[in-house]
């Protein structure tokens, strides 16, 4: 599902990483770990086609990643630093956006929101949410929509203990549904749940 061969990315004169091979099959979860600034987010951007590596080639879902391509975006779901929500819409309306525009049956929206810990807030506009609630909404959004590949960049940020447990469950559900999951993280339980771990340094 994700197949990278010999990829290298340079930041100025310095190679963040080079000659890197990485692959994730359907139904698998790979974790990327490493200190700040080592290139975890850069690697994720390469998988989403937001950044082109200077060396090597990447295939995601069988083709070169290009987030400008709507078909690619429909297959690959991401939670990045630039992920956002509609502050003026409620969580229920966000799920309606997903089901309506992806043409998918997500199941009972209210059940999904209760599972995400947003049951009490499902009719409150997202602009009024706390940081943790916003994170839960974003995580629900990227996992509830149809996807074959899931890319999560430090998804545990701003989540409380219960939220982090829920995150592990979400990833397990995605892999069980056959998705290839890549998660850049500093959260140890996610490493335990991962099928493989790539350490950058």
């Amino acid at each position: 599902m994700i197949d990278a061969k010999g990829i290298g990315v340079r930041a100025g004169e310095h190679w963040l990483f080079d000659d890197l091979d990485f692959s994730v099959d359907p139904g698998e979860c790979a974790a990327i770990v490493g200190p700040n600034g080592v290139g975890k987010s850069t690697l994720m951007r390469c998988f989403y086609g937001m950044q082109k590596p200077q060396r090597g080639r990447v295939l995601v879902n069988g083709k070169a990643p290009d987030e400008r391509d709507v078909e690619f975006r429909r297959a690959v779901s991401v939670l990045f630093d630039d992920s956002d929500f509609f502050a003026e819409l409620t969580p229920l309306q966000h799920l309606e956006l997903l089901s309506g525009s992806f043409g998918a049956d997500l199941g009972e929206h209210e059940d999904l929101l209760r599972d995400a810990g947003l049951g009490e807030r499902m009719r409150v506009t997202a602009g009024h949410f706390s940081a943790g609630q916003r994170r839960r909404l974003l995580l629900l959004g990227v996992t509830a929509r149809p996807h074959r590949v899931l890319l999560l960049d430090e998804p545990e940020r701003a989540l409380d203990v219960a939220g982090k447990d829920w995150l592990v469950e979400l990833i397990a559900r995605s892999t069980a549904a056959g998705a290839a999951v890549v998660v850049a993280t500093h959260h140890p339980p996610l490493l335990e749940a991962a099928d493989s771990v790539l350490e950058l340094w």
Partner: protein
Amino acid sequence: MRIPGRKRFGGIFSGDTAGFVFLFGFGFLFTAFFHVDAWRPAVYGSSRVDFPAVLGLLTLCCAVGWRGLLRRGFVWVEPAELTWLDFAPADRGRVVALRLLGAWTGVVAVTGYLASLLLAVGGAGLDQWRAAVAVVAATGVVAFATARRTSLRLDALGPLVLAVLGLAIAAFGLGPVTVQVVAAGVLVAALPMAFGGEPVARAGRAVLLAGWDGRVLRSVAVTFLDPMMLLPPSAPIGRLSLRRPTPLRLAWAGTLGRSRYAGAAVLVGFAVVVAHIAVPTVPGAVLIGIGAYVALTPFGGGLGELWRNPGRRRWLGSGNRELVLAHGLVLAGAGLLWAALLAVVTLAAGTSFAVTAWFAVPLSVLSILRTVTRGAIDYANPAFVDTPMGPMPANLVRQLFRGLDLLAFGLVLLSVIT
């Protein structure tokens, strides 16, 4: 208290670029008063100057200025000042009050300048001058009385009523004495409008910081030549369903969420009609086109946000074409409503536009769609070109005027045809 290192008077007297721009602008604006005979045919043509229409236009300009002041963009204090200056002699309330005074002076100066220019170029008599002074002064008083306190529910109606009065002055050809009576009425209305709410100078930290955020956004938008940053966000739209057809419903929700700009759109419509009567040299297509662009651009904000914000865009599985089509359809509907309003106001004012001038409305809708679907600005290659005014970053300007280029081209074409 002055913070060390900060420039006084916005840096105007520092001898730097700001000073040059101020002096150049001041000189340019006042040169017109020494060439009124040359300006007369350009503004009013060869026909007799319709002074009631000029006074009506001036009243509308005052209404626009009043509405601008009611946005209370002057209510801000820098976070650093809120953090460090609690023990300084300059209270934050005084800072906001001074800013209110500055903003109000700006509005009065601009409307006063417009009044002076229009009347001087038209060769107005003493009565017209008295009427214009009365309108500017009365609006100044009512604008100050309402902007100095927190917003009330019916505040937005004030400028609209003043705009209707401006339209009536132009449409019925009311004389300068009647205009002075209208101004006196506005002055009387200022009295009850001054009460209620709380003085904005007593605004709390949250309001001051929100104002500061807005100011930072505005200055960044200007500094980086990116006015699309100023597209207004949507207000919550209640429980409106976004189920299929989702793109169309989202576009509708975005328009409803920006309905607070409907009043401004009406104001612009009035201004277009009155300007058509007062300044006959400007082609009708140009007035309608610019008016429609200004009135409808806020309603293109929903599509603009999707284009500018990839994080939001990812919530939608729809293709770009489908999104543009859906938003274009809703924007065209808004354009149709605005055109209908314009037609009614035009008829009420006893004037008319050429049939071809109305094509400026769909042209503006297309221009807005082109404007808001501009990608992120590429600063890498500004491509400076030498001009008599100095070097111009041609590539940045090309990106800045995306959408406006189509509008300008179309309006020139429509004006020629008309």
